[in-house]
């Protein structure tokens, strides 16, 4: 039996937390068993004297040196810029790149289980999981085996995933080394460490790639026989599995070449070199207003025919309707939430705001604008048939665009309740600067939650009228959102 080797996490220092004694346990050199908890200072690593165990120990030690404390990870997830699985995958990548740079033999990591992972995920046609796994295995021996597993069933997916992993490595390696490895806290933020901002940037890009429709099969003549298994079963699986790529998201008209070209245009964002430029939102603080004016009516409320009632207002139906629905019945409106971006760039006058409020009877109307003074930055101007006659001071910065739309989604009574967001797309965070990553966060959220976005007061009123008429309003993306989308996704922002 190989000699037991320990590991020395106590020797590591960080700028964001005190050093101290660690609890170190041993495990087999198998995926999923080694782990590191920076908050509780627990580490479990293989203690065998083998190249693989040594590489795993280096990997876990690098986590102990650089990765966020586990109890602070929630704060990164709450930001909503990137998903938790993407951040975990990209953090693996960051750690693996740095270990390799220091001379550790990361190719020693990897076994047949990685190949099985590839085969299993292709069989499940789980494109997002394939992307995440390829990223997390990059710069280790696992990636080659994983891609071999993928290629056994789908050569084309294997190629695309290899390209994505290469791009992620290239992007991560392009960052300033000192900043990439910094464990300093981020100024004006509860977030730490600074180096993790690079993980978040790439993770946001990975999320966008993973959420794209899966690439369509590329099946040239003679391929699909499996690239190494040589077994009859494998080729049969390959033919069967690949030929039925009718999974979610595949766009039948898209050729492999088109897909490759499309994915190349999906670009990561960059936060810049300065710590103060970290894009982040201000905390949403909803202030009180006096809702003193009653507005009659309710958006979407209407009368429909009924076969029971007091006054027969639809007598003609006695002859035309088989159910003889000659009475009226009131149907409650679905209501809605109107979010008004009341920042300076919108140039909204009080009359224009009032016009929108009057066009949205029965709706919840909220307006927001952050002054950067720590005071209220959002106000409910209308609710339950009442609106405010006096408006608070607005027309300043944005600050809370995303928290506001997030609040609206959390507060809608039913998932079918419409949300209209009136904004010019000039979304700004804490430092009142527009940033693509913040704009992209809003776009993704609006798409996912079916929020209707309109760029100005006129389109807002037109949309509200459509709602009153029982029709569904359409999103008209503001120019700034369109620009962001084109810049980061390389395509047009569609409804």
């Amino acid at each position, binding site marked *: 039996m190989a000699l037991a080797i320990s*590991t*020395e996490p*106590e020797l*590591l*220092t960080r700028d964001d937390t005190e*050093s101290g004694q660690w609890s170190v346990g041993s495990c087999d050199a198998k995926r999923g068993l080694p782990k590191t908890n920076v908050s509780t200072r627990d580490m479990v690593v293989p203690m065998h004297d083998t190249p693989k165990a040594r590489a795993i120990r280096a990997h876990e030690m690098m986590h102990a040196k650089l990765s966020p404390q586990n109890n602070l990870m929630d704060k990164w997830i709450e930001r909503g810029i990137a998903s938790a699985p993407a951040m975990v995958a990209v953090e693996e990548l960051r750690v693996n790149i740095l270990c390799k740079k220091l*001379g*550790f033999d990361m190719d020693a990591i990897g076994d047949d289980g990685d190949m099985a992972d590839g085969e299993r995920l292709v069989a499940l046609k789980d494109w997002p999981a394939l992307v995440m796994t390829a990223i997390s295995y990059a710069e280790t021996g696992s990636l080659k085996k994983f891609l071999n597993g993928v290629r056994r069933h789908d050569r084309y997916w294997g190629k695309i995933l290899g390209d994505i992993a290469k791009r992620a490595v290239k992007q991560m390696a392009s960052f300033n080394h000192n900043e990439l490895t910094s464990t300093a806290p981020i100024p004006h933020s509860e977030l730490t460490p600074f180096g993790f901002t690079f993980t978040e940037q790439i993770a946001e890009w990975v999320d966008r790639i993973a959420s794209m429709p899966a690439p369509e099969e590329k099946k040239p003549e003679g391929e699909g026989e499996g690239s190494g298994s040589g077994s009859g079963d494998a080729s049969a699986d390959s033919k069967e599995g690949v030929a039925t790529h009718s999974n979610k998201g595949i766009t039948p008209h898209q050729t492999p070449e088109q897909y490759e070209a499309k994915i190349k245009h999906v670009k990561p964002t960059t936060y810049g070199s300065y710590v103060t430029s970290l894009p982040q939102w201000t905390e949403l603080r909803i202030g009180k207003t006096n809702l003193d004016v009653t507005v009659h009516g309710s958006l979407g409320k209407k009368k429909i025919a009924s076969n029971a009632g007091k006054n027969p207002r639809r007598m003609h139906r006695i002859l035309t309707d088989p159910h003889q629905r000659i009475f009226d019945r009131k149907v409650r409106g679905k209501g809605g939430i109107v979010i008004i971006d009341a920042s300076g760039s919108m140039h909204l006058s009080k009359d224009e705001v009032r016009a929108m409020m009057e066009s949205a009877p029965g709706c919840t109307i909220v307006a927001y604008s952050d002054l950067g003074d720590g005071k209220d930055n959002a106000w409910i101007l209308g609710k339950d048939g009442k609106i405010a006659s006096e408006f608070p001071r607005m027309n300043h910065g944005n600050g809370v665009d995303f928290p506001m739309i997030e609040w609206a989604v959390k507060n809608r009574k039913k998932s079918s309740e419409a949300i209209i967001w009136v904004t010019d797309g000039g979304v700004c965070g804490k430092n009142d600067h527009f940033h693509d990553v913040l704009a992209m966060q809003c776009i993704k959220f609006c798409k996912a939650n079916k929020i209707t976005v309109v760029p100005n007061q006129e389109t807002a009123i037109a949309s509200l009228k459509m709602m009153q008429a029982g029709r569904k309003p359409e999103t008209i993306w503001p120019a700034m959102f369109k620009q962001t989308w084109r810049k980061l996704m390389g395509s047009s922002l569609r409804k």
Partner: protein
Amino acid sequence: MEATTELPQCWKHVQQCLDNGIDRILLYGPPGTGKTYFGLHYGNIDGGSHRLICTEDMTTADLTGMFKPDGGSFCWHYGAGIKAWEGNGIVGGRLVVDEIDKASGDVLGELLALLDSPESASWENPETGRIHRPKAGFSAVMTTNVEDMNDLPIALLDRFPVRIRINTPHPDALAQLSKDLQSHAKNSADAGKRRISLRSWMAFDSLRKGIGAEDAASIIFGERAQSILDALTIEAV
């Protein structure tokens, strides 16, 4: 020697005690953190400092004194305890007793008498009959690696109401190491089973300059050489 950088919390407490007239301090914690060095060199030591290392074989002679042959006759030689009492003849000195937990019953009994309050403490010279009392300014620093204070005699603990756990090397001691090793020495001083003493780091530091880090680690750290070198590499990222 004075502290060159900001003191860690434990050392700050010790310094504050010395600066505010506390003359009995018990320092405990992992070895190799400079407890003895601090006792011998810091605070008011105008009266000199005298060190004792307790072992099971030690006798009270090391504390109070003994007759030694001197040119055909025997004359009395004072032990470290009485020397510290007398100091420089004007002010009392400092008595530093290491490994206090290893003191035998006899030594401990004598030590308790020496460390009694100045009003009660006295000792008679068997040769001259002179009564010695601790001079003003006498102080005592005890050190031990015992972590649980309940393992020490109650009477001794009673004489040392100030008990401070030292868990990190003194910055002045760390300053003797190469800069790249200072944080490691600091962090590993109190790392439980994986503790690496300051002395080991100093030996490694010296040896690596001559034969390279890998060989030096192999000699100093033995089986842990690879994992320590890997940790140093990752720390330098």
